[in-house]
């Protein structure tokens, strides 16, 4: 029996044309598999105009967050500044202050743009902490479905899901000094279970799929099965949730600041500005409303983008 196998092995080396052909495919490969997968995803993403609007809004928000301070007309209005003579100017009445001024005479447009950084940073920091940890917990618990690991991990994450996120965030931040860093930590601490839950749901439904069983009986290591076989299949739902949650985290962040547990005045945090302006709501509505609309603008962007990503990963085959 063994001798025959050796003859076959020699035949591998002799086939030169196989090697040339493999070279050929190698060069041509660089673009083919990724290109058409991306093309298909982009086609489905862009078929809904709203998703493109979402993408545009998100790009604008991130641009403002990063380069805001360089393009605002009155950068010094971001800190301690007051100019009572220009107090409460109505929006759209003067070119000098296009969106009017607040109770200290500071330009509302400048402070709102500066505010973008705090909201986007909040989302970025929270998501970068929450997504990896939650996904790994969900992956490990999902793969070891119905074992003690599953019960332990998912029950721990249930603790944080037992209460609405805003309540827990408020309570935890309240116990610490009101500092944006603590707010972010509090939100992250109780947001990872949501990603653990979504990954767990996806992985636990895939674990009995035949391609996983096939990898197991061939002797593939657990780590490789989890991270290389199962995880890529959850990329769609996780990416969608990440984008939608970016908006959610901003709402939570703004709510914390609104209550006074986030960034303290005079920092131009959108939530804090909305709270600050609410005392003058009756007559000088713009002081509070403009930052509030800015928050909604960012969140709308993330929601539209998230739905677009969901469509892109939807595996709907053609009809026949």
């Amino acid at each position, binding site marked *: 029996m063994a001798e025959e196998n050796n003859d076959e092995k020699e035949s591998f080396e002799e086939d030169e044309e196989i090697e040339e052909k493999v070279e050929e495919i190698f060069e041509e490969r660089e673009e083919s*598999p990724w290109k058409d997968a991306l093309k298909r995803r982009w086609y489905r993403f862009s078929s809904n105009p709203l998703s493109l609007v979402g993408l545009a809004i998100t790009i604008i928000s991130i641009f403002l967050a990063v380069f805001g301070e360089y393009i605002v007309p009155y950068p010094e209005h971001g800190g301690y500044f007051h100019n009572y003579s220009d107090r409460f100017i109505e929006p759209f009445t003067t070119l000098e202050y296009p969106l009017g001024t607040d109770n200290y005479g500071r330009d509302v447009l400048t402070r709102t743009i500066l505010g973008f950084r705090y909201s986007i940073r909040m989302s970025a920091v929270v998501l970068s902490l929450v997504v990896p940890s939650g996904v790994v917990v969900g992956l490990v618990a999902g793969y070891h479905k119905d074992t003690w690991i599953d019960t332990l991990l998912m029950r721990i994450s249930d603790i944080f899901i037992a209460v609405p996120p805003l309540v827990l965030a408020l309570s935890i931040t309240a116990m610490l000094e009101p500092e944006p860093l603590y707010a972010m930590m509090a939100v992250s601490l109780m947001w990872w279970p949501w990603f653990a839950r979504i990954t767990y749901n996806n992985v636990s439904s895939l674990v009995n799929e035949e391609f996983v069983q096939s990898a197991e009986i061939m002797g593939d290591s657990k780590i490789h099965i989890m991270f290389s076989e199962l995880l890529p299949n959850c990329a769609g739902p996780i990416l969608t949730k990440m984008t939608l949650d970016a908006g959610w985290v901003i709402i939570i962040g703004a709510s914390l600041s609104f209550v006074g547990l986030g960034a303290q005045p005079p920092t131009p945090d959108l939530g804090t500005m909305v709270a600050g302006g609410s005392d003058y709501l009756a007559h000088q509505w713009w002081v509070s409303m403009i930052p509030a609309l800015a928050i909604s603008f960012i969140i709308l962007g993330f929601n539209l983008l998230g739905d677009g990503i969901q469509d892109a990963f939807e595996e709907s085959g053609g009809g026949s």
Partner: protein
Amino acid sequence: MAENLIRVENLKRYFEMETGTVKAIDDITFDIKENEVMGLVGESGSGKSTTGKVLMGIHPPTGGNISFREKDISIPSAERSKSIKRDMNMVFQDPGGSLNPTKTVLDIVGLPLRIHDMVEGKKEMAERVYHLLETVDLEPERFMYRRPNDLGQGEKQAVAIARAIATDPSFIVLDEPTSALDVSIQAKIMNILIDLQDEYNMSYLFITHDLGLMRNIADRVAIMYLGRFFEVADSEVFFETPLHPYTKVLLGSFPTTTEEEEKLTPDINARGEIPSAMDLPSGCKFHTRCPFKEERCLEKEPKLVEVEEDHFVACHLVHGVDDVEYDIEKVEQVERDFEYDIDEIKMKTE
């Protein structure tokens, strides 16, 4: 006489459910020789797929034991040695489900090569996969970097077969490999399987519910019903001179296309539904549906007895009255006067 590649003795596999115990496999014994295709046929709930999965270690057996080249493998695949895992592999029923949708064909077919580090570096992997794709009639240029959802059902199953033979195993379990394929594509896949079996002298456990397929690939066939063997025989004997009523019923339901086939399909039908594996009928498990049912079929469960050379049957009728010689006329006579008609069914819907 080729020695035994696989030996299975009194294999049992029960599944504990909330509502009771499902006896998927209820004490079966068989062996598979080198370079032999053993067929397992039966309807859903017969336990044929579970048998394949237990052999591969997806489920550990509840009772009995299995040995592969004299090494005991009655343990889940995780605990089996790498050399055994390299020497066995499996092709699954649903072509779409058995390939990872996010991987390219190169990654999928190359996975076993990587696990058993039979190649160093991407270049040699691509060459080995190139060769494997050629053996399953898939042009490597077109398919190497494709993803499963860009492949037809037949092409997916060909990729699954290429993956299964990648480590040059001596035994492959084929769990209804072509039931999801159209007839025209199924013929191509079956030809590939038969050629590979000769070329690499492998042994197959071929599982299907389609008797036509079985007849054209299996050397020996075993028919299963609710976890037990009812009849085991060489392919010709099994199809030319079937003895067990259930085998005849299955043959009778086969949709024939040629005259010669008509002769092989007795006009017998089973009655009622397949009982649930949760509460198995007493005595012979087929008595609730068997047209030739007798008193003793309800009490005693017939054993698998070697009625002829290499021809085992588990049926009281066939065994004759206790140990009296088996009389073939009695069975044929009963066949003729049983006529299926609709009113009789309506009356007796017990």
